[in-house]
């Protein structure tokens, strides 16, 4: 057996290589720059720079496609097609916004991360570390690793490679979840749960992949699809394997009954991490699920539709109902994320070509609104006893009368909530419209009906917060108890996301056209 030099078309991978390569270099920066303050500046610059350059390359590639389907980087392993470029661009945007939030500091000069992750919360050592001005600037390279892993996740066409990429973007998230500056006990609890359940679901995914391999002798998605087409009777092993693979991906999307981690982790994680994770993980996992379903399991569409229906309906019901009774704003948005996972899965009904437009658009609008909403949460703070800026004010009651104190924040929040609710003239409406029409095109009538009713009920808890912000007077002494921050970086993020939500709500055609031309998965064999 002679060694054959592999043929790899590296060029289409440029954006991913830039992101991951910069991440590795950024680790070296950690080692060589001693001063935490300098390190933060350098890391932020390097991170944003890398993400922007990568975004530029994605755009260049997009333009270079010029109507062609895309490139097979390595047969059976990675294809960079228009669809994955669209997802990659979206993830890079989420990454940039996330990095800005990671760097944002309160007026007391504290960012969202603990000064030192290894010491117990509230200990003397932690105080010493704070006084020494330490910073966990590793979050920036970790963010880059996560973004890189997610970008890979959107273009891989191989079950085992998917598993590796899944871990590549999950591990940094597990770590970052544990690093909150405030309420770090909760943050560590969230990290432990996230990790344990994440590993558990990876194991389920993996066993499923093994079963699929056993049933088809194939591991790359396209060959699996072809092999299944040739199997006259679908045997149980293939179906069970497919269910387990899809369940593993649905875990990352946060759909019920694989959603249990979502509320706890969203609440416990540092809010900038929640913002990034809420937007990006869902997008990446959806992109992978698209590829798995459209390339590998499309012959099983009828069999698996049961699963999609059941999971979508459960997610919408559980997410909506549980969000109704939440008193913690982060938790409320987390349950709404579960409901949105349900809406996402609605689009998979029938595996229509429409869904390939609807899903990226939905995830884009949802992700932008999520980042914006969580960014606003970082700005409403409790005042510490010593008069400094304390933890985030996350009880709903603490938001009463915010509309009077900060019309900008409250107005933007209202906008994001309306977008979540799918009210017309916000991006969320167009997203829902696209998703529902894709599902109708796929013949999933009753599913859409449930989705519509769920979104109606969901409107109540979104509106409740709006009513609270604008039409309820702040309780006595709220001015002293609640501090409203005006951090520049965060405001930039809020401004960008709010503008995007409005523009995508009124003039969505530009972006929809882009996704429209990206609505083909490159099939190398066919």
């Amino acid at each position, binding site marked *: 057996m002679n060694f054959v030099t592999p043929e*790899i078309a590296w060029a289409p991978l440029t954006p991913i290589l830039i992101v991951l390569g910069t991440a*590795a270099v950024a680790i070296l920066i950690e080692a060589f720059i001693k001063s935490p303050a300098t390190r933060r500046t350098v890391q932020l610059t390097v991170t944003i720079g890398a993400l922007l350059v990568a975004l530029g390359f994605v755009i260049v590639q997009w333009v270079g496609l010029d109507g062609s389907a895309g490139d097979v*980087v390595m047969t059976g392993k990675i294809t960079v097609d228009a669809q994955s470029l669209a997802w990659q661009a979206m993830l890079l945007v989420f990454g940039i916004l996330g990095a800005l939030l990671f760097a944002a500091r309160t007026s007391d000069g504290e960012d969202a991360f603990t000064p030192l992750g290894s010491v117990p919360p509230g200990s003397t050592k932690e105080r010493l570390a704070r006084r020494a001005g330490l910073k966990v600037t590793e979050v920036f390279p*970790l963010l880059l690793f996560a973004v890189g892993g997610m970008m890979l996740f959107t273009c891989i066409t191989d079950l085992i490679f998917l598993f*590796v990429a899944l871990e590549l973007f999950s591990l940094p998230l597990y770590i970052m979840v544990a690093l909150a500056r405030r309420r770090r006990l909760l943050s560590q609890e969230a990290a432990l749960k996230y990790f344990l359940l994440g590993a558990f679901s990876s194991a389920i995914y993996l066993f499923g992949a093994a079963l699929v391999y*056993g049933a088809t002798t194939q591991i790359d998605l396209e060959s699996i699809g072809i092999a299944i087409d040739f199997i006259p009777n679908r045997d149980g092993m293939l179906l*069970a394997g497919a269910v387990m693979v899809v369940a593993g991906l649905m875990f990352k999307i946060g759909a019920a009954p694989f959603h249990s981690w979502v509320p706890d982790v969203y609440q416990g994680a540092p809010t900038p991490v929640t913002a990034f994770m809420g937007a990006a993980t869902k997008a990446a996992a959806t992109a992978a699920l698209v590829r798995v379903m459209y390339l590998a399991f499309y012959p099983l569409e009828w069999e698996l539709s049961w699963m999609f229906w059941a999971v979508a309906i459960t997610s919408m019901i559980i997410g909506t109902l549980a969000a109704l009774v939440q008193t913690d704003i982060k938790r409320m948005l987390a349950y709404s994320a579960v409901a949105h996972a349900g809406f996402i899965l609605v689009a998979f009904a029938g595996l229509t070509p429409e869904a390939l437009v609807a899903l990226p658009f939905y995830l884009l609008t949802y992700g932008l609104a999520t980042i914006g909403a969580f960014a606003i949460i970082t700005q409403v703070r409790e005042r510490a006893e010593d008069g400094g800026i304390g933890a985030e004010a996350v009880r709903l009651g603490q938001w009463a009368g915010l509309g009077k104190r900060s019309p900008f924040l409250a107005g933007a929040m209202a906008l994001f909530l309306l977008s979540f609710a799918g009210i017309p003239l916000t991006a969320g409406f167009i997203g829902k419209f696209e998703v529902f029409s894709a599902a109708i095109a796929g013949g999933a009538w009753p599913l859409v009906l449930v989705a519509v009713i769920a979104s109606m009920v969901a409107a109540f808890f979104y509106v409740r917060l709006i009513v609270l912000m604008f039409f309820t007077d702040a309780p006595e002494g709220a001015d002293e108890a609640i501090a409203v921050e005006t951090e520049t970086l965060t405001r930039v993020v809020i401004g960008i996301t709010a503008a995007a939500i409005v523009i995508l709500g009124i003039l969505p055609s530009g972006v929809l056209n882009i996704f429209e031309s990206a609505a083909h998965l490159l099939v190398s064999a066919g």
Partner: protein
Amino acid sequence: MVNEVLFWTVALLTVIPSLALIFAKRPVHIAMSIVLVMVGLAAAYVGMGAPFLGMVQIVVYTGAVMMMFLFVLMLVGVDNAEDLRETIKGQKWIAFAAAGGLAILLIAVIGDATIEPRTGDVVGNPEEIAMVLFSEYVLVMEVLGFLLITAAVGALVLTHVPRLTPRRTQVELQAARVAAGADPVNKPMPGVYARHNALDVPALDPEGNPIEDSVSRVLEVRHQTQDGAEFRAQLEDTDNPDHEARPHGAPSRDSDTRNTREGEEPK
């Protein structure tokens, strides 16, 4: 190579120890059982034409991963027997039902599968594996590199405690001690010049006055020290060896005998 002996050996070697995960109380026992499971799996790999993987399994799993588990178990020092009584209502029932259901489901679907084995003897020796790894799977290998970096960085972020205060030299320590008003020289040990050299008896200075500081503070707090003045009196009254007025709580004569240094005659 797949024969019944191998299968049943591996089956016993893996299933029985792995049950420790459910029923054993001590985490260390569990970890050691899992080591056995890993060895069993390695044997299975070797038996199924994957000698390289078998070796890697031994090296990575039994050698590194499981040792790391043990290491952490020792580090956190919680090798207490775990109370296996279930605290979450119904969890035990659900867990056994779910695991049983899972096993039955998987066995059923595997039994249902129609698999046509191919003939041919492919052996995954290092050379063959390397050929495939670095041609077809080279990209995955590269991504694995990033994954390992992430893991290492993550572990450091979460566990490494850097020095938070500057290290102090001996000179600095000494200066600080003097500045705090400490004696520049050693303090006398308890019992020096006293009638007894027990730890609970204050030393006497050359004039015979007791130095209260010389007794451990712990004893003082516990009120287990002897009165120095009394021993001074004894010093003066050496003619009376059978001084009976031993303070309450003082060691008995027998213990005195044991505690006296060699060559010193007990009175």
